[in-house]
């Protein structure tokens, strides 16, 4: 599911990176507040564990093998915030040192695998576990959680791929980045993840969970009843809706904005229309004079709506983080850490 370089436009990458910034911040703050300093090294070692688990081949029926990300497992073992950081670090090392996934696409990859995957998986796991208290229910919860988690992540990746040809093409209609539209990218990504990779993730997660449960049951007690799970649910829905929201907003903007943008582009020549308030990465597109004016409104609408979405997200995160802090302080005083 690692998105390589050049399949996403730099502006998409910048938007995804910008979305991840508050997530990382929140995860870091949460981890700093929640995890006692004795367990600080565990973050790095957890990341090493996460990295290695992505290298591992899981045996599947019929003699085939598959890779797992293990995001849901990490979220259950370490908590979703720490899982987010661990997977981020693992993805960074993969991208920089092993060429797995692009550097510019790092934000997008983190969004899919370090954020959507563990948070969705954890949320589903907790919701089912709350309702079914038997041991079998717990296995079911973690199986379904990991399955939905990886598929949600794959879906986000598919949407990121699929919106590229809609927004980024030249005058001749030739795609500049990923050439496959949503109608191709979604089935192409989802068929594999609904079957083989989904299965690999479920096998990986339940098998290791089962092993740890048998050998060291005490491990799982510490996470019980911690955190506000409706909060995770809200966050997950919000984030999952973002790419779709971007898509819808972008086309809507494109419908009414052309005249304005044309004017701006004519007056200011090449560099005149770099909007200073936009994200850094988005302005790279503005260097292209041969990028026909007819397609610019789409781009602008897309970026503008993305910036608005991002700003809203940051605001929401700030508001939510105030709740989180309260929770943590309460836990701290009772835990005596």
């Amino acid at each position, binding site marked *: 599911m690692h998105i*390589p370089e050049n399949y996403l436009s730099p502006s998409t990458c910048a938007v995804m990176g910008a979305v991840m910034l508050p997530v990382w911040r929140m995860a870091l703050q949460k981890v700093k507040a929640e995890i006692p300093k004795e367990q600080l090294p565990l973050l*790095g070692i957890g990341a090493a*564990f996460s990295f*290695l688990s992505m290298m591992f081949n899981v045996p599947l029926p019929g003699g085939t*093998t598959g890779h797992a990300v293990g995001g849901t497992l990490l979220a259950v073992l370490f908590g979703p915030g720490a899982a987010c950081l661990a997977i981020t670090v693992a993805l*960074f090392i993969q991208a920089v*040192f092993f060429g797995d996934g692009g550097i510019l696409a790092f934000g997008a990859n983190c969004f899919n695998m370090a954020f959507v995957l563990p948070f969705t998986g954890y949320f589903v796991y907790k919701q089912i576990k709350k309702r079914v208290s038997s041991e079998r229910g717990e296995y079911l919860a973690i199986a379904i959680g990991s399955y939905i988690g990886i598929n949600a992540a794959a879906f986000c990746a598919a949407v990121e791929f699929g919106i590229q040809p809609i927004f980024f093409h030249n005058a001749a209609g*030739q795609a500049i980045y990923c*050439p496959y539209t949503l109608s191709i990218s979604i089935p192409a990504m989802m068929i594999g993840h609904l079957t083989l990779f989904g299965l690999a993730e479920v096998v990986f997660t339940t098998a290791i969970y089962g092993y740890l449960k048998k050998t060291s049951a005490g491990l799982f007690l510490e996470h019980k009843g911690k955190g506000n799970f409706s909060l995770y649910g809200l966050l997950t829905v919000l984030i999952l809706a973002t790419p779709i929201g971007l898509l819808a907003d972008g086309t809507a903007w494109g419908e009414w904005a052309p005249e304005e943008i044309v004017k701006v582009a004519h007056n200011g020549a090449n560099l005149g229309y770099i909007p200073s308030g936009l994200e850094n990465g988005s302005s790279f597109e503005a260097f292209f004079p*041969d990028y026909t004016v007819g397609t610019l409104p789409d781009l602008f609408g897309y970026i503008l709506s993305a910036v608005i979405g991002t700003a809203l997200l940051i605001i929401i995160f700030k508001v939510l983080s105030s709740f989180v802090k309260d929770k943590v302080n309460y836990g701290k005083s009772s835990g005596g850490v």
Partner: protein
Amino acid sequence: MKQVILPKWLYKEENYEPQQDRDFFISKSILKIAHILFSIKKQGGSGNFSAQFITGKILLTVVLLVLTASARNSAFLLCVLAGELIVLCRLSAEKLLVVLRAALAAGGVSLLILLPSIWLGQQQALLLIVGKTILTVMAMSLLVTTTAWHSLTGSLRFFRVPQLLIFIFDLTLKYIVLLGEVCLQMLYAVKLRSVGKNRQKKRVFAGIFGVAFLKSREMSEEMYQAMCCRGFTGEYRLENHIKLRRYDFFYFILAIFLLILYIYIEGVL
């Protein structure tokens, strides 16, 4: 002296041929983990923490990646290719092969993924993306093969990455080696001990990872105790400040030159 009588079955010639078993997943995992351990160890990844900063080099690479990714005509890409080839020429044959292999492999995969897009009438995307993929992967592997990995993570501070994250990066690189060795030993053990058909084999991987996880907790406790002994109070700080060297400015100038070239080429054509 008493004569030892060997039991009859020892005289019999045995024709035991173990049944074939599919253990792809073990062999594949061994190969993959061994490869990673090899590449980390080779460049001294588990070595010193006090590495040199290479801010300029990273900045140049990032600028190059962004410009290459957003370029729309082949003239600029050819310029980038020329530049990269010049740097490539100065590498030793061994490193050169590593870089070339990585770039061509990535290009090949990209070609395979994009091949169906020809039927969608997207030939240009095919050429552009494959070309760009080769260039960007080459640039990245040039950066990685010519620098110590701890310098790379250390230099992230220049880009305002929090200290805690950099600490985690360094720790992760170290522990990939340590944990990877644990996994590798267990994988070897399973492979050696399962002769013929072993139905338990599939169940074994959960054990390997379970043990690896428990081991990682143990290691983290030990690490914390070691840190405490050295005066760790819960705050992670690196003392030495980031200093820009003359070398860095050379890379800055190169990056600016690349930017001007980009504006010129993409603007004129």
